[in-house]
């Protein structure tokens, strides 16, 4: 039951009347030889770690700062609680504050779950917590969603890449966002036929995004990229739930992403030598932190 792409998985699920979660579970049981209970227990632990990193991250004053960035998640969260209006709405502002929170905990050597990487670790927790609050989802449902997210990521890893050093930021933040969108649609009971449109839309929206961390540190632009990753998933979920589809199917988008990644010069793949890392200010930070 190891399939090469999403269309074969969808067909298999439909033929056997399985949900994407049930498929993910049986896939993992046969691949890792773990029992259902072991898998779910481990995912529950991961979910707890994710929720804790949000909690920790929102206490902005605690835990120091990064080499470059300040911790801002708490301020963003507060602005959602205030009586002022927010340009993108309370739900969105809270969601991105969760994504920032995890990312900032990561930067200050706190505990996180890499999903798919440490650099993009804020996206899934941000989207999941937001959906849990809006739709009153149970933790068990979120754990199911994490397995679905894992299957989506495994398809991308297999057919393209989830590493910024290989495929640029589209492969990291793009993949995290696609995983969160597909999982979100699953958790909201969207039919399996439509679920992967969320993945296609999110990947397309970040197609070509380069990896250009200033001074090679996972701080700038990564902090805010986690916010766009969260927002990207939420808007894709809303679009798909109101009936929009991706004209290009998920599997082809993944293939395109791989080709785009292959064409990226190494200075745009995590070496910290291109993009914003190679600006006057970016270089200044590099010198300040690492010397000449």
């Amino acid at each position: 039951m190891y399939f090469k792409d999403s269309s074969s998985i969808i067909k298999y699920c439909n033929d056997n009347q399985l949900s994407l979660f049930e498929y993910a579970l049986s896939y993992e049981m046969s691949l890792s030889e773990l029992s259902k209970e072991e898998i779910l227990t481990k995912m529950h632990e991961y979910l707890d770690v994710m929720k804790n990193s949000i909690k920790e991250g929102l206490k902005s004053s605690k835990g120091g700062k990064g080499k470059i960035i300040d911790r801002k998640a708490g301020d963003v969260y507060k602005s959602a609680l205030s009586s002022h209006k927010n340009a993108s709405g309370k739900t969105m502002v809270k969601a991105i504050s969760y994504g920032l929170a995890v990312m900032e905990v990561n930067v200050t050597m706190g505990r996180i779950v890499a999903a798919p990487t440490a650099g993009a670790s804020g996206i899934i927790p941000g989207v999941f917590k937001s959906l849990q609050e809006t739709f009153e989802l149970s933790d068990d449902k979120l754990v199911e969603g994490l397995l679905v997210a894992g299957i989506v990521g495994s398809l991308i890893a297999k057919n393209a890449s989830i590493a910024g050093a290989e495929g640029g930021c589209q492969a990291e933040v793009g993949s995290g966002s696609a995983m969160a969108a597909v999982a979100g649609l699953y958790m909201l009971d969207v039919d399996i036929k439509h679920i992967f449109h969320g993945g296609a839309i999110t990947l397309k929206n970040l197609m070509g995004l380069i990896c250009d961390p200033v001074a090679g540190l996972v701080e700038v632009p990564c902090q805010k990229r986690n916010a766009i990753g969260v927002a990207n998933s939420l808007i894709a979920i809303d679009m798909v739930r109101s009936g929009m589809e991706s004209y290009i199917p998920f599997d082809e988008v993944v293939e395109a992403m791989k080709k785009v990644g292959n064409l990226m010069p190494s200075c745009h793949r995590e070496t910290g030598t291109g993009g914003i890392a190679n600006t006057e200010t970016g270089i200044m930070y590099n010198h300040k932190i690492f010397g000449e």
Partner: protein
Amino acid sequence: MKNYSVFDIVGPDMIGPSSSHTAGAAKISFMASRIFGLDIVEVKFELHGSFSKTYKGHGSDKALLAGIMGIRHNDSRLRDAYIIVKGRLKYKFKKVDLGEVHPNTVRITMTSSTGESGVVQGSSIGGGNAIITKINDIDVEIDGEYDTLITAHKDKPGMISKLSYALSQEHINIAFMKVFREIKGKHAIMVLETDDKISKESLKHLKSIKGVYKTIYIPKGGH
């Protein structure tokens, strides 16, 4: 094409900021301290490639120190490694060029309270995965993804079957097994990855086999 476990994608849980420079580094030095097996009073980390360039920015130094003290890659105490290490052991970081090795490589030299020393080298190969590539002068390959038993024994006929027989007596299933040696007829190192945990008694029993100098057990990575 490889089929990835969902836990390769969602996970590991770790201390940030970088899976390869922080989590991977902690895993290498944790395994190194286990392999050395003695109580460490002094340690030297020789950092190569990307490790030597950016170790401070990613907290690789804290991760390496933490691992040596038995703190794992997902333990929040990792952040305070410099505080915890005070009064416990002496340490040194050095930038070096180890030649044609993986860009994230560290060579760790450990000294015990009895004055014995040992060298373990390892690389952080991405996604928080790490491998040990050298124990003293012998090339090895150990990733710690399974419960791992390492034996140092005399390189002579019959040793391998004796060891695997002893394990089967203890109902320990061997998943993978590799033998490495420096010079024929001298020392050999065997790395056994097992599906089952290995108890202290089993380890003692294995060590009592004639020709076995040392047995080391590395419990499966902090999942």
